[in-house]
């Protein structure tokens, strides 16, 4: 987006207005749309055309790494100093399943969190002007960025859905 683009932030009291605004903006060809909601709302996600989240790849890779680590580590340490304990083989796979399982869960969970942080760009501690404290309470928000010549069109689409508040400014958010 060029530097002379404009940003609009509309707050809505109603879910259907929010979803309609997003759909109309997308129909009109606006690409830089960001939505805010006080809770996970799948209608908004659907309106924005989200597919599968790649978090699952992190979970899978983390889990498999954990399983492999669990088996490899227990086996290696048993071979490192072979001691017969309880009449069991030096490498007792059934006993190591427990360790491998716990490592699968541990690595899988931590990888999921790392994936979430990377994908949703958290933590993000710089103060953002494109935000309203109402978005964590009872209102939905739609932020759209439009080139200067299409600014009026974007404002018209948002206005048509009767927003509780409509802010505009030069600031460009990282959508």
């Amino acid at each position, binding site marked *: 987006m060029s530097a002379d683009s404009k940003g609009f932030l509309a707050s809505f009291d109603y879910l259907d207005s929010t979803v309609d605004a997003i759909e109309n903006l997308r129909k009109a060809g606006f690409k830089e749309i960001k939505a805010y909601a006080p809770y996970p709302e799948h209608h908004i996600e659907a309106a924005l055309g989200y597919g599968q989240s790649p*978090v699952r790849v992190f979970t899978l890779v983390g889990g498999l790494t954990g399983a492999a680590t669990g088996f490899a580590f227990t086996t290696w*340490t048993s071979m490192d100093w072979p001691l017969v304990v309880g009449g069991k083989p030096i490498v007792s796979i059934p006993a190591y399943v427990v360790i491998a399982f*716990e490592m699968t869960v541990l690595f899988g969970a931590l990888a999921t969190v790392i994936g979430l942080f990377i994908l*949703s760009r958290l933590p993000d501690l710089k103060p953002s002007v494109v935000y309203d404290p109402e978005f*964590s309470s009872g209102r939905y928000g739609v932020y759209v960025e439009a080139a200067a010549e299409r600014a009026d069109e974007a404002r018209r689409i948002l206005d048509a859905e009767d927003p509780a508040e409509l802010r505009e400014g030069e600031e460009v958010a990282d959508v």
Partner: protein
Amino acid sequence: MATSTATERGALTHPDVEQLSDVNRDVLKILSKPGKGWWILFLIASAGVGMFLGSWAWQVYRGIGVSGLNAPVGWGVYITTFVFWVGIAHSGTLISAILFLFRAPWRQSIYRAAEAMTVFAVMTAGLFPLIHVGRLWHAYWLIPYPNSRFLWPNFKSPLVWDVFAVTTYFTVSAVFFYLGTVPDIAAARDGSKGLRKKLYSVISLGWRGTDRQWHHFGKAYIFLAALATPLVLSVHSVVSWDFAMAIVPGWHATIFAPYFVAGAIFSGVAMVITLTVVMRKVFGLEAYLTTKHYDAMAKLCLLTSLIVLYAYLSEFFMAWYSGEEIERTAFWNRLFGDYWWATWIMLTCNGLVPIMLWFKRIRHSIPALFVISIFINIGMWFERYVIVVTSLHHEFEPWAWGIYRPSLTEMGIMVGSFAWFGFWFLLFTRLLPPVAIAELKEVLPPPMRKRTKEAHS
């Protein structure tokens, strides 16, 4: 913004919560100035923590001899209390993860408190092996690290499995708890000022509730729940194998893993009832914790109580049916031996008292549930006491039988652990939103401008 008529609202989980922002108002109110009741409880808890740490310090100073532990009973109140707290933790994960995957609509109001309970209960439980080993400065020997003697832990030992299970459980449940709280900390941030705002800004990680954040958050949460579900079952199974892998009569049983898991959920749900009844009263959360929630929890208690009772009876039956003299003696001794009172407390509290939950009137009476939940908590502590102590004091050889009596230090640590748990739980209710704000809104009807038009699907 009320979007439904009064009759329609009757069918909802929270008929008295009218709009989304009500949730913020009612929940964030709890975080403001603490009342007198909170301070009294907090002072009692702090005094208890003093007793807990004092008793422990005394044991560290004098040595493990100040406890009643000796041959033949080497595991006593410490291991009993360890298993008790791990068990308490389990229903928190059950409510937050398993009921999440099953989409149970009644979990939203209670799950944050249940999850906090999990984290603090595992934290408390984790101290007990350290207390129990006596020389806690050697506890790091349990962790596999390269050392000068090239020795590694024995990974075939259930005690090492337990180290891995409990540390994984603590890590995962703490992460799960924190992550679920992030959007609500953001809500607290937006509703606060000054120093609190600064604190919440940092620990909310700058959460803004954007579509991208919610999208990935939702998926990550499902995966964490899916990982936590088998984890919770594995942890108490591993704890039960600490016993079942040994050949001690009364411990060596294949039923132990499911029996322990059911018992854990039973005691944990009872603890959730105990805690939330107090919270509901002190913080005025009647609109969020309704009789529907307590009814559902009571049914869960009833179910797990039946499973636990079945396990007790089948243990006695198997001891008789096996024809094994030592096994028979062990279980006869359990019912009529030196510790008969502990066994009968266990059977009464866990088997008889919950029978009252069959009645709807009892399930809908919150004072009755509160009293029953305390009975269950006591009963479940005694269950572990029975398993640990009666089995050890009366093993194979008659000349090796002996009596165990907990010392004052042990009782101080055991009672103090409840204060230690309460201390953290009380701090939690003041510092983090104790009711899940964002998730509650998911079960409220969304505000709609056009009543006639269905929401876009």
